[in-house]
């Protein structure tokens, strides 16, 4: 594998990852902007409109027909939340030219389509074309409505809303029904222009072979834009509430959900991540073994650490009658770590699991792409083997310290409707 990153303009990185084992090529163009309730829906729609139609393919049917003729090439836009930031973008992937039955230049055509979507959108006089935009907007509104269909995901989103209240991270990366409804083709186009002008941009291509001219083409397109990039802050720890808060929502469900958000002011992110693995990321983690297996209190009980917000989130699927006991046991397991109760085996298992995951980075084009993007967000380019050294340096004492820094911030509950 060969990795190379070039800063092709202020605030614009172009990374090329050449890995000969792959049969596909993929590209991700990521725009990083501050997340805000005022702009998140417009930004998401401004980006989604780009992959619905373009100047060259002015109807969705034409664009989709071209993509399927190119052996089902994928082209999509995305909007994600990363702490207090919104990461928006366009990504595409396609099979390599050597598999083209009719000898098509798939890579050349796809790169041209991606550039066309990004820099020559289907817009005139400062607004996206009405009909395709209406489809894009309806689709986003449907997606917002459908969030409740996934109960675990809904519970996590509501918990974040409560835990990070007053901070950008409380917002959804798509906005909400009201803000998305208010976005017009003009507002979305203006958001798109603003993104091109102000965002930090990372372009990543993962391919089995060099694609001559790809970097130069993007450099040329981007140099035509009058940019003034706005610096972004990748980590912004969330302040802890004075007293832990519990909020709940009642609905007609069979299984209740409990999401506990703990916050920490620790900067030792590797110790925090190891703590999360020891607590609740493996089938031998403390929460799985004790809360689920030993006490049968939850069907699932898992943890995850958000370095961007300094928060450890524990989510569980639990019966209503067990909520109190489960909460108590989760806190007791954290207290045990604070008291130094981490066995050598737990530490070794956590490290082995990290080592295994790091060694498999690069087995898919998407994992290479997101690996280097995430490292840039964390402050610099580093290979998986460098990060492994950081994990290896974590001691039991550092994990205990990390656990002691945690404080319960809030609890969000999805409750079933009590009978009688």
């Amino acid at each position, binding site marked *: 594998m060969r990795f190379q990153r070039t800063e092709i303009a202020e605030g614009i990185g172009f990374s090329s990852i050449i890995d000969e084992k792959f*049969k596909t090529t993929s590209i991700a163009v990521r725009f990083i902007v501050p997340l805000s309730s005022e702009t998140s829906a417009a930004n998401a729609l401004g980006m989604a409109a780009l992959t619905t139609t373009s100047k060259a393919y002015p109807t969705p049917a034409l664009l989709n*027909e071209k993509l399927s003729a190119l052996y*089902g090439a994928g082209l999509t836009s995305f909007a994600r939340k990363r702490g207090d930031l919104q990461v928006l973008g366009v990504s595409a992937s396609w099979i390599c030219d050597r598999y083209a039955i009719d000898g098509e230049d798939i890579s050349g055509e796809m790169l041209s389509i991606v550039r066309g979507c990004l820099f020559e959108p289907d817009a005139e006089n400062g607004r996206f074309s009405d009909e395709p935009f209406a489809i894009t907007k309806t689709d986003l509104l449907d997606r917002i409505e459908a969030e409740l269909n996934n109960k675990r995901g809904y519970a996590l989103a509501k918990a974040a809303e409560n835990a990070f209240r007053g901070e950008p991270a409380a917002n959804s990366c798509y906005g909400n029904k009201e803000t998305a409804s208010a976005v017009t083709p003009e507002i979305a186009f203006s958001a798109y222009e603003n993104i091109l002008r102000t965002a930090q941009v990372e372009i990543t291509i993962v391919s089995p072979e060099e694609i001559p001219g790809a970097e130069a083409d993007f450099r040329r397109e981007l140099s035509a834009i009058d940019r003034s990039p706005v610096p972004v802050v990748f980590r912004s720890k969330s302040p802890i509430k004075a007293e832990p808060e519990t909020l709940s929502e009642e609905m*007609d469900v069979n*299984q209740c959900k409990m999401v506990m958000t703990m916050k920490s002011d620790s900067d030792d992110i590797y110790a925090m991540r190891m703590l999360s693995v020891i607590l609740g990321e493996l089938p031998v983690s403390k929460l799985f073994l004790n809360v689920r297996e030993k006490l049968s209190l939850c*069907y699932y009980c898992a943890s995850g650490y958000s370095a961007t917000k300094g928060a450890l989130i524990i989510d569980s699927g639990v019966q209503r009658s067990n909520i109190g006991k489960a909460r108590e046991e989760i806190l007791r397991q954290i207290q045990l770590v604070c008291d130094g109760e981490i066995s050598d085996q737990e530490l070794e298992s956590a490290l082995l*699991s990290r080592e295994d995951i790091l060694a498999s980075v690069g087995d898919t084009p998407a994992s290479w792409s997101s690996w280097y993007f995430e490292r840039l967000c964390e402050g610099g380019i580093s290979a998986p083997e460098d990060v492994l050294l950081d994990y290896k340096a974590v001691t039991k004492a550092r994990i205990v310290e990390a656990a002691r820094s945690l404080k319960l911030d809030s609890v969000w509950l999805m409750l079933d409707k009590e009978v009688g």
Partner: protein
Amino acid sequence: MMSEISNITSRQTGDSCVHVKHSSGLDIYICEMPGFSSTVALFGTKYGSVNTMFRQRDDEEMTVVPEGIAHFLEHKLFENEDCKVFELYAKTGASGNAFTSFDKTVYLFKCSKNWQDSLRILLDFVQKPYFTQELVDKEMGIIGQEIRMTNDDPSWRVLFNMLSCMYRSHPVKIDIAGTEESISKITAELLYKCYDTFYNLNNMVLSVAGNITAEQVLKICDELLIPCQDKGLETVFPEEPDEIIQPEIREAQPIGAQLFYYGFKCRDCSGEERLRKTLAASTAASLITDDASEMYQDLLKKHIINTTFDAEVFCGDGFFTVIFMCESDYPEEVRSAVLAEIERWKTEGIDEKAFQRIKKSTYGSLIRELNNVDAVANLMLSSHMDGVSPYDAIDMLSELTSQDVLRFAEEELREDRAVLSIIEKEGEKQ
């Protein structure tokens, strides 16, 4: 008996893997994938939730077992006599897991280091059951929680509601995990009965892909596989008529977006015939859900569908359905549009240009599958269980014609054998 080794190569792509009929009775597939760091190993038995009635050559009578027992057995096999399997994987760093589907149970691990130790763990624990009534009773609560959780999942409910209206007798209509009532009848003795019947190596397959060599895999297999005698397993399904039970079903749930499945009950088949039929069925479904088509764009503009409109072919032993699905407030209109499109094909035929384009798109997705260690391991295992070779799909696709697709649609996509299943928003029942 000696092991028999053969190479399987795709005519279309040149990709290849090794098939071994091991002297123990086990079928083994190995795909060396140079340059990849991970290894994925799947050890599976052709035993899923639909196998509730069976006998072996020497049995006089059929054995009928409670619904959900295959899934229950999968949970319990993770506990050895002296420790839990996850504790063993924790020492190698591998990520171990298992799943039970309608027609298979698979134990697996994924790792980038120590794959040989992890393979030893996998082969060892799957061959060493340890069930006690106490452990069985303890598991009831956890699986009961799992059943409750899946009942809150609208995409799960919409499928099973559809199947319950489609299949009169076939156990595919039963939830994979069973019900809290059915699993209460499971005993340690019944688990051993099922284990002894279905976990015979002659009924199982091992699939290993990634950063490995065939030689090393076979060396470990030679060490650990305990030869099994083929006991002539016979699985039986109750007779299933071609007709459906009822054409529509609705359920209300606390959801944000209404969703539906519209499925056609088709006649089942097996082996290469099933693969050919699956390719014809999935091409028909892709043509109907083709986002470049006039029908799709028209429905999208009218907001009768959104971009979640999709289709899948769902088939296995004794069942074959083509399902259209979408989050939509207008399922009846989508049903009408799908049926009208099929009728149009009957008079106008299938657009050859669109057919060739969809075929290319399917070819692209099959190539992508070969780019991924997990997908390759799954492909080898599933193909064997379906009675075909791993690269048959990509080779058979090149022979598929629009006439094959039209014939399939005419014969199988029948309005009188279709079921519409809708999960409505609570409080908005019609």
